């Protein structure tokens, strides 16, 4: 069932029957792809290669694929024993999971209200959310930082989490999805006396798993990689997220290129590994939410 693995958004498309799979133009296209694909992998490969060299070799001015000192994990050992990276990765994980959970939960609840419940003030709130989509969070850094000072949330997990824990665009995406679920499914349960929350929990949510997963993936990647807000709201090195922490030390490594690259690779690794395992879901999630953002 190869159609199953790649269907749902990304069906596998091969050459059409009767068409020569190895025509000159197809071979030319393949060559172009090989060159482009390889080019796109070069920065990764070069970073990995550097990270496996000794500092002396990494800092030597010739490009060498066969360094005199050979390859080792020495740079990784040094970076990990210096201690900050695991702590930053932990901070990133905690804050990203919290942001994802709160965003998905609040967006799903609000999306359901907009889709199914007619309540006073609904139109105003809805209009405000649509208007808010075009406000770039980058423009709010100064007032938000003042607010965080006032709330005493600077240098706390909550200070990192709360301003990132809602997403107007996701409310719209989920509302649109809920709109497509037949109301009859819920009516039956409501006639039986189930209240809204129960209907939402036991009927609507189970039907919405794919879209919830898509939203969660999208939000998680954004939160894990976000730089500007965590950079502004944390000054305590112990509370920094991975991108922010790395930024503060990347200059401190100075000429230690192997360690510099080792720490970059370590920071990249978690999402890359997750991606390799869930490639299909992640790609589908990005495509769905990307299209839904409008």
């Amino acid at each position: 069932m190869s159609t199953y693995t790649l269907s749902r958004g990304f069906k596998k498309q091969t050459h059409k029957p009767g068409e020569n799979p190895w025509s000159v133009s197809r071979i030319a296209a393949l060559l172009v792809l090989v060159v482009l694909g390889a080019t796109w992998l070069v920065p990764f490969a070069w970073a990995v290669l550097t990270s496996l060299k000794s500092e002396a070799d990494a800092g030597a001015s010739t490009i060498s694929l066969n360094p005199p000192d050979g390859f080792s994990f020495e740079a990784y050992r040094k970076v990990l024993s210096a201690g900050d990276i695991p702590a930053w990765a932990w901070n990133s994980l905690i804050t990203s999971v919290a942001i994802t959970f709160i965003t998905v939960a609040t967006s799903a609840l609000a999306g359901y209200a907009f889709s199914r419940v007619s309540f006073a003030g609904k139109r105003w709130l809805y209009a405000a959310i649509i208007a808010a989509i075009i406000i770039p969070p980058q423009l709010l850094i100064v007032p938000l930082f003042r607010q965080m000072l006032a709330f005493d949330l600077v240098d706390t997990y909550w200070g990192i989490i709360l301003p990132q824990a809602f997403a107007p665009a996701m409310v719209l995406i989920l509302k649109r999805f809920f709109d497509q679920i037949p109301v009859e499914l819920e009516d039956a349960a409501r006639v039986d006396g189930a209240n809204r929350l129960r209907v939402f929990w036991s009927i609507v949510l189970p039907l919405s798993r794919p879209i919830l997963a898509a939203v969660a993936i999208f939000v998680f990647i954004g939160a894990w990689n976000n730089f500007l807000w965590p950079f502004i709201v944390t000054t305590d090195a112990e509370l920094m997220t991975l991108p922010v922490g790395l930024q503060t030390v990347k200059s401190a490594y100075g000429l230690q290129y192997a360690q510099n690259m080792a720490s970059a690779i370590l920071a990249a690794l978690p999402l890359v590994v997750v991606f390799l395992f869930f490639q299909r879901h992640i790609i589908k999630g990005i495509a769905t939410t990307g299209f839904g953002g409008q």
Partner: protein
Amino acid sequence: MSTAIDTPPATTTPVVAEGKKQARRGETLSGWAFAAPFAVLFFLFLVVPALYGLYLSFTGETLTGSGGKLLGFGNYAEALQDPDMWHSLGNTLWFTLLSTVPLVVLSLAFALLVNLGLPGRWLWRLSFFLPYLLASTVVVMFWSWMYNPKLGLINGVLAEFGVAPVAWLQDPNVAMISVVVTTLWWTIGFNFLLYLAALQNIPEQQFEAAAIDGAGKWRQLFSIVIPQLAPTTALIVTLQILASLKVFDQIYMLTSGGPAGSTRSIVQYIYESGFTGYRFGYSSAISYLFFAIIVLVSLAQYRLINRRSAA
């Protein structure tokens, strides 16, 4: 569709009307209960800072809280005469132009190539998309190393061909191009995925019909594929322009906005006015000027897209 159970009867007795009012109140209550968690966060961390920022933009507020008196439009007048503001704004628009064109055109080309069904499909998809998963800091670390004038791979390879080393990030004439190349590498995967998904939604029959009519591959590309992708292209261009206008991370970390301010973006100028110059009021005023530009761009795009779909 079942016949609506709750159609109001022609004449409502007072008792029923009272019941309906109560039901409506119940709906409002449960609606707000569902919306409240989101609405509270939305209000506290978006509406409040947006309004507070607007207020700050009319004051001389600094980090210490001194000088917070009302200045009227003083900050705005100053910003409009500030050569650094205009320079940053110009850089931002230049970056947006330089990055949007290849990020749309190349992502389409990549998606078309991958969609041909050649061997190794998952590998091409992986290599084009993987960088999108990286944090800006990691991207910048990779590319600072690639661009390193003495030890970097790019100058190393150029040296093999006898080309003199280029100061990729230090030469004001080159730095913006280098930033754009890094951005292209980093973010093309998103547009690429959207195009790939859209390509696979084009009905197969259209190609078959065109093939029967004798249309060649290139003809099909321009008469079927690209027109079919028009809504996707409109979406991608919109999202890309807005994303490029907000550029900060990679520029700030690659060049710190240098050399000589030649790559400083408007968001970086907002950041620096606020957090290194400690002029919160002034920084907020520039934020609002920039927001006005974003609103104008969004409106222009909205009109363009609507006109096109109406035509």
